[in-house]
């Protein structure tokens, strides 16, 4: 039993070391800045300028966008890059479980997303006078959403390839599709029944609704539903990543 806990402690510390290393190595990479840090703001401004919008509504939308884009950008960029450079082999051969390695990689994307969305929140509060209805819920939402979408990005990062370009295309495409079917630019309440039905497939819908609860104090869906869907999809998203990594080991990547 003691050995078991020691091992858990070891693995957690290894995951943390991987996270710290990746933050240090990748935060300044153009690919990361472009797809991770600038993209959500670009999306926000290009689709929001023409509409009259209350500060709170804009705040809530920007938070959902930064969590979604930044968190999901890290995995598809970092892992294929490391495979190409050959440094991923060091991690795969190290004495830690695959789950630990993936946990470390998930935390990197989540970390970036938490930082970028916190900056967005601070700017919104200080300069746009956005009022936050439930600050604690906002923080919880940022954390849980960041981890969920980082896990989603990891699926693309796990595709066996040595070329980040191979993964960037499909992962960006999927993110755009999700973005437009989710209740981000068109609120759920204004959607047709069909569109609304489709939007329920996307976890981003629940993240947006959660942010509406936190910032505006009201949402279309139940709070517990938003939180549970995000939490569960974060866990379910892990399965394809594990499968794809095993496949990579067979294919020789």
């Amino acid at each position, binding site marked *: 039993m003691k050995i078991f806990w020691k091992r858990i402690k070891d693995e957690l510390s290894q995951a943390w070391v991987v996270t710290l290393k990746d933050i240090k190595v990748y935060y300044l990479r153009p690919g990361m800045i472009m797809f991770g840090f600038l993209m959500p703001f670009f999306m926000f401004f290009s689709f929001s300028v023409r509409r009259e919008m209350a500060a709170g509504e804009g705040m809530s939308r920007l938070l959902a966008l930064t969590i979604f884009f930044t968190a999901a950008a890290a995995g598809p960029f970092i892992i294929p890059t490391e495979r190409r450079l050959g440094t991923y082999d060091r991690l795969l051969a*190290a004495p830690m479980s695959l789950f630990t390695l993936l946990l470390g990689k998930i935390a990197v994307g989540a970390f970036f997303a938490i930082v970028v969305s916190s900056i967005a929140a601070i700017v919104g509060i200080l300069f746009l006078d956005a009022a936050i209805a439930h600050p604690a819920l906002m923080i919880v939402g940022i954390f849980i959403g960041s981890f969920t979408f980082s896990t989603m990005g990891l699926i693309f990062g796990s595709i066996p390839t040595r070329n980040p370009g191979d993964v960037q295309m499909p992962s960006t495409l999927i993110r755009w599709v999700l973005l437009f079917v989710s209740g981000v630019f068109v609120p759920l309440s204004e959607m047709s029944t069909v569109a609304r039905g489709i939007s329920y497939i996307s976890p981003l819908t629940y993240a947006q609704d959660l942010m509406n609860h936190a910032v505006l104090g009201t949402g279309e869906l139940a709070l517990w539903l938003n939180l549970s869907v995000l939490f569960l999809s974060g866990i379910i998203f892990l399965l394809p990543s594990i499968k794809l990594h095993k496949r990579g080991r*067979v294919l020789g990547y």
Partner: protein
Amino acid sequence: MSHAIEVQNLTKIYPGSGEGFLAVDKINFTVDRGEIFGFLGPNGAGKSTTQRMLTTLLTPTEGQILVLGHDLAQNSYPAKRQIGLVPEESNVYTELTAWDNLMFTGRIYLMSKADRTARAEELLKDFGLWENKDVKAENFSKGMKRRLSIAMAIIHKPALLFLDEPTPGLDVQSTRAIQTLIRQLSAEGTTVFMTTHQIEEANQLCDRVAIINYGKIAAIDTPEKLKQTFQQVQSVEIAFTSSPEGLKEKLTTLPEVSTVLKIGDKWRLYTDSPPDLLPLLMRFSEKEKLDIVSLNTLAPSLEDVFLQITGQQVGSVSEGPSQQKADRRRKKGKQS
């Protein structure tokens, strides 16, 4: 005590079109603790594929691997804790300093702070990188990066070190430094498994050598014994005062001579039987009115053995398997 490595029936078929590509074909070997074991073969022979299976990076199609007594298919964790790996491209994190690269690796291998800082200092000093410890690795030369990569692989004092082609592309000094280092590690008790396509490197460094070709092990022995086994690849080296046109063709037509190579001002004639060739050469020189400057019989070099086994033209180590042979291997993969 168990062997350092024990491999049985190890096979890798890369999935792909048709039945896939047979890269390693039912190989068996053992590596004893403390030895430097060389895995020698031309490009594409299956060296990296084998090493990647031994280090858990690649899932075998078939076969069993025991590393330091642990079955990798059962539980690779205890083996992983005791091995070090220098990958083929021996890559380091270029955005990090030499020091941070070592600290990262030390922490991944769960070393205490005191242990990893002491060990990193020792290694950086040993490897001539101490002055550059705070320089980002992107500014390092290829040789410095390779040395850093090896330092990272041994920071946790592994019992077994894997190196994939440790020296190609390096200058003479760096190559020497790395070879000295490998000997030193071995003297300190580390088992070394290294792949190489450089025959001389295997000859000078390794206690035992496995020659691998087209995914199969063709021979395993000490370099000296391998040479003895291949007495038929002996040669006679002869130099004449002049070398008129057409001399090579004439030498090639001599009975007993299999291949003729020009090496500087000398001719190397491969033969099964030097004693029979010598009188022939005497008569030849008289008939052609050529004076002999020197005449030597040579024992087979490891290169000769290697070329003989891998079926390559003497004197031309080809860069990889020909397409035709690769195709043939694909078919073979289908049958099995």
